[in-house]
C-alpha cells in the first residue's frame, strides 16, 4: 500500500493506506481523530469540513492521497494550550449548538469565513455557511456566535 504523509494539527503523520481512502477515513480511522464527523457522505452537509493548507474543504470528498504533503487542521487542532479557539468559545457562549453533530464542520467553515470576510455582515455569514447543514439550531445562534467570534478574532 502506498504511504501518505501530511502534517495534521502541527504533527507529521505517515501511514500506509489504500489509494481509495478518503481523507475523512484517514483522519477518523487511521489517526483516531473522530472530531471530524460524517453526516451525509454525499458532499452536502459540511459535518466533515477541515482545513487543507488554509482552505476549508469537505474531507468526505477528497482522497487522503490528494493531501500528501499538505498541512491539515481539524477541529482537534483549533484550541491552544487547553484554551478554546474564539470560534469554539463563541459557539458555547451563544448556544450555537444543540446535539453538536454539525458543530465541528460548522466551526471549521466559520473560521475560514471570518478569515476571508473579517467584517462579514449577517447576510454574508449566512451565505458563506451554505455548505453546512444543522438540523437542530435553526442557524440563528450559529450566526450570532460567528459574529461574536469575528469581533474576538480582530475583525
Amino acid at each position, binding site marked *: 500500500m*502506498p504511504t501518505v504523509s501530511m502534517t495534521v494539527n502541527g504533527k507529521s503523520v505517515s501511514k500506509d493506506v*489504500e489509494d481509495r481512502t478518503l481523507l475523512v477515513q484517514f483522519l477518523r480511522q487511521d489517526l483516531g481523530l473522530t472530531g471530524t464527523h460524517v453526516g451525509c457522505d454525499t458532499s452536502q452537509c459540511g459535518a466533515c469540513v477541515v482545513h487543507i493548507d488554509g482552505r476549508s474543504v469537505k474531507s468526505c470528498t477528497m482522497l487522503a492521497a490528494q493531501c500528501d504533503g499538505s498541512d491539515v487542521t481539524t477541529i482537534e487542532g483549533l484550541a491552544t494550550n487547553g484554551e478554546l479557539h474564539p470560534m469554539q468559545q463563541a459557539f458555547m457562549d451563544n448556544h450555537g449548538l444543540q446535539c453538536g453533530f454539525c458543530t465541528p464542520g460548522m466551526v471549521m467553515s466559520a473560521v475560514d469565513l471570518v478569515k476571508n470576510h473579517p467584517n462579514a455582515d449577517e447576510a454574508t455569514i449566512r451565505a458563506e455557511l451554505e455548505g453546512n447543514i444543522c438540523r437542530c439550531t435553526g442557524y440563528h445562534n450559529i450566526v450570532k456566535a460567528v459574529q461574536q467570534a469575528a469581533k474576538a478574532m480582530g475583525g
Partner: protein
Amino acid sequence: MYEFAYHKPGSLADATAALNSAADGKLMAGGQTLIPTLKQRLAQPSDVIDLGGIGELSGISVSGDAVKIGATTRHAAVAASGEVASAIPALAKLAGGIGDPQVRNMGTIGGSIANNDPAADYPSAVLGLGATVSTNKREIAADDFFTGMFETALAEDEIITGVSFPVPQKAGYVKFPNPASRYAMVGVFVSQGGGGVRVAVTGAGPCVYRHADMEAVLSGNFSSGALASVATSADGLNADIHASAEYRAHLVGVMARRAVDQANG
C-alpha cells in the same frame, strides 16, 4: 468505492502517458463530481489521474480582449479575482454562486465543463460568451463543445488545458438555484460583444443551449422589455421532482430578463 490506483503526475505529458497506459483511466481535477460518483459505485476506473499537481494548468490571465482561465483553476479563485471581476463581472459572479464555499475551494472550471452537467453554471458562460476551449490536442469553439447530456466533443484521452473568454461589452448571468444543491434549475447567460448577442440557457434542457429567438430580438434591442415578445416552448425541457417543463420554460423568460437587466447595469 471500488479499488483504483491513484496517480499524481507533475506534467501534462506524464498525465497523458498515465491515461494512455491505464486500462480504464479517469482524470480527476477537484473531485467534487468524480469522488461522489466513485462513492456511489457509478464508475469503476482502474486508475485515477489527479491533475492537481500540474502547475501549468492553473491560473488566470487577462489581456485586453480575453480572459484566460487554466483548466484546474478553482471556482473560488475565479470568484475572488479582481481582474476577472473588472473584465467580465458576470463570470466572477457565476463562479461565486457555484455550490458552497467548500465546493468552490476544490471544484475547477475544467472539471465542470468536461462533466457538462445539464444544470451546471460554467457551460452557460462558455457558450454565452462564445469562449474557446483549449485541450492537449486542439482548440474547440464553444458551439462545438457541448454535444449532449453529460456529453462533450472531448476524445477519451483528451485533457482540457484552459478556456479563453472574449471580453464582451456587456454580460449578465442569473440563475434560479435549486435550494439544496445550488445547481441551476434554470440559469441564463447573456452577452453583447464583438460576436453579436448570445443567450445561453442551462438547467432547462438536457444540455446547455443557445436561445435563437431571444438572440434575434436582443440583437435589435438589448433590453429586458424586448424579451416580452419571445415565448419559450416547454417541448423537450427537463421535468423532475423539482419543477415541470412548463415551470422551467417560464423561468427561462424570467431569468433572461433579469440577466439582461444585470448586463445593462
